[in-house]
């Protein structure tokens, strides 16, 4: 079995479980939507411009729902010790890790694709081709977030304070992608040229690559038991 096939199998399995149970995506979607609604109440968007506050609001909604998704994605492996079976399977552990990251990125990307247009409506912004680029920028940063998050979740779910510990470790570590996502989105919504935020896109891509590579090297140590 090739490495790529193993990655796709793991990701495909997560997607299949999700399609049959529809447990995660629906919950995630509603949770993220709820965060948007809370912000809609908390700030008066008739006074505050969406370009000023919107990017932050969107990213908060996505990291809150994302951290739940990542945590859940490993919890289901720990339930009934499913993880033992996977660790015994003749696939590379990093392939398992990458498959998990791929599934999480897909879930979060789906939530982002649905919720960004919802936010545009909710906060009375205007639709344009830029909105599609906003979604792409968010997904680029989601990759880095999911890469670090999945590595951390593999550890935190086998400790006593599983759900509490993941955000505690992940949010500080993900500060660079949070800042990059918000800045890139702000520039995109304001219609600035690529030169104004190109360095942020570069940093997001670098973050994604650095931590995917680091996690592939380190995941043997976190998936030992």
């Amino acid at each position, binding site marked *: 079995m090739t490495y790529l096939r193993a990655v796709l199998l793991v990701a495909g399995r997560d997607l299949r479980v999700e399609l049959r149970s529809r447990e995660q995506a629906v919950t995630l979607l509603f949770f993220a939507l709820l965060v948007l609604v809370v912000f809609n109440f908390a700030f008066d968007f008739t006074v505050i411009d969406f370009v000023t506050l919107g990017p932050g609001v969107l990213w908060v909604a996505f990291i809150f729902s994302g951290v739940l998704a990542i945590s859940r994605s490993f919890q289901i492996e720990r339930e009934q010790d499913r993880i033992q079976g996977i660790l015994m399977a003749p696939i590379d552990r990093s392939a398992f890790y990458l498959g998990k990251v791929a599934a999480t990125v897909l879930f979060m990307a789906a939530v982002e694709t649905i919720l960004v247009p919802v936010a545009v409506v909710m906060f009375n912004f205007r639709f344009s081709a830029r909105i599609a680029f906003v979604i792409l920028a968010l997904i680029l940063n989601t990759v880095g977030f999911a890469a*670090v998050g999945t*590595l*951390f979740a593999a*550890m*935190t779910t*086998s*400790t*006593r*304070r599983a759900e509490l*510990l993941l955000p*505690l*470790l992940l*949010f*500080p*570590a993900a*500060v*660079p992608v949070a*800042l*990059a996502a918000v*800045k890139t989105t702000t520039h995109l919504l304001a219609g600035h040229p690529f030169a104004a935020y190109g*360095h*942020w896109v570069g*940093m997001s891509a*670098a*973050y994604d690559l*650095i*931590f995917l590579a*680091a*996690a592939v090297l*380190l995941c043997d*140590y*976190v998936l*030992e*038991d």
Partner: protein
Amino acid sequence: MAVPEMSRSRTAWPDLAEKALFVLVAVLVPVCLHAIFRTVPTEEKMGVVQRIFYFHVPSALAGFLGVGLCALFSALYLWKRDRRMDLLAHASAELGVLFLTIVLLTGPIWARPVWGVWWTGEVRLTSTLVLWLLYAGYLILRQSAGSPEQAARFCAVIGLVGALDVPIIYYSVEWWRGLHPKVLKVSGGQGLDPAMAQTLALCSTTFILLFFLLLLQRVRLGRLQDDVESLKVLADRRTSHMEPA
């Protein structure tokens, strides 16, 4: 049944180093205090409050040393799987958090009278806070792990990922602020009065020595904790042998 190896016999040189460091720090701390409060000239613009600088900057040095050493010992632990490396990594992280806490407490006390604000989005402040949060999480993870071996393995991974993240966090926070003027210019060097530079060097040396003294003590404490744990296991086994099943 193997009797757990007691640590006292094999820790001759760390014990000696610890004693020597203790004497050195005990002598240097009063010298530092004398220099800070009596001999060093008062800064012209900032006044007396600037003297907190001699605690703030050395603490920052010790804090970053802790974070750096934590990453180094974490890597060594994953490579060699040596319990001592884990004790060193743990002690480094704890001291890193301790000294960064001092940095984060003395910073606002200094900033309030000088800049007029307790806190700003300045890059060094913000990235130090993020770093502090990350390593506080590291310590909580250590407490929550199922076994000492798991704690060691997981924390080593966090220690390495954290160290990899530090420069990226720094640059992201710096870019975040855009063209915001640098409010803080302390460690430039050229503007520093020679007496002030000497005091700073003296205090930094003392804090670094204090760091290593605490490091050795913390590692010794960790070893004693390990000994207590293995003695407990041994005692449990003995009592379960004696009781009829």
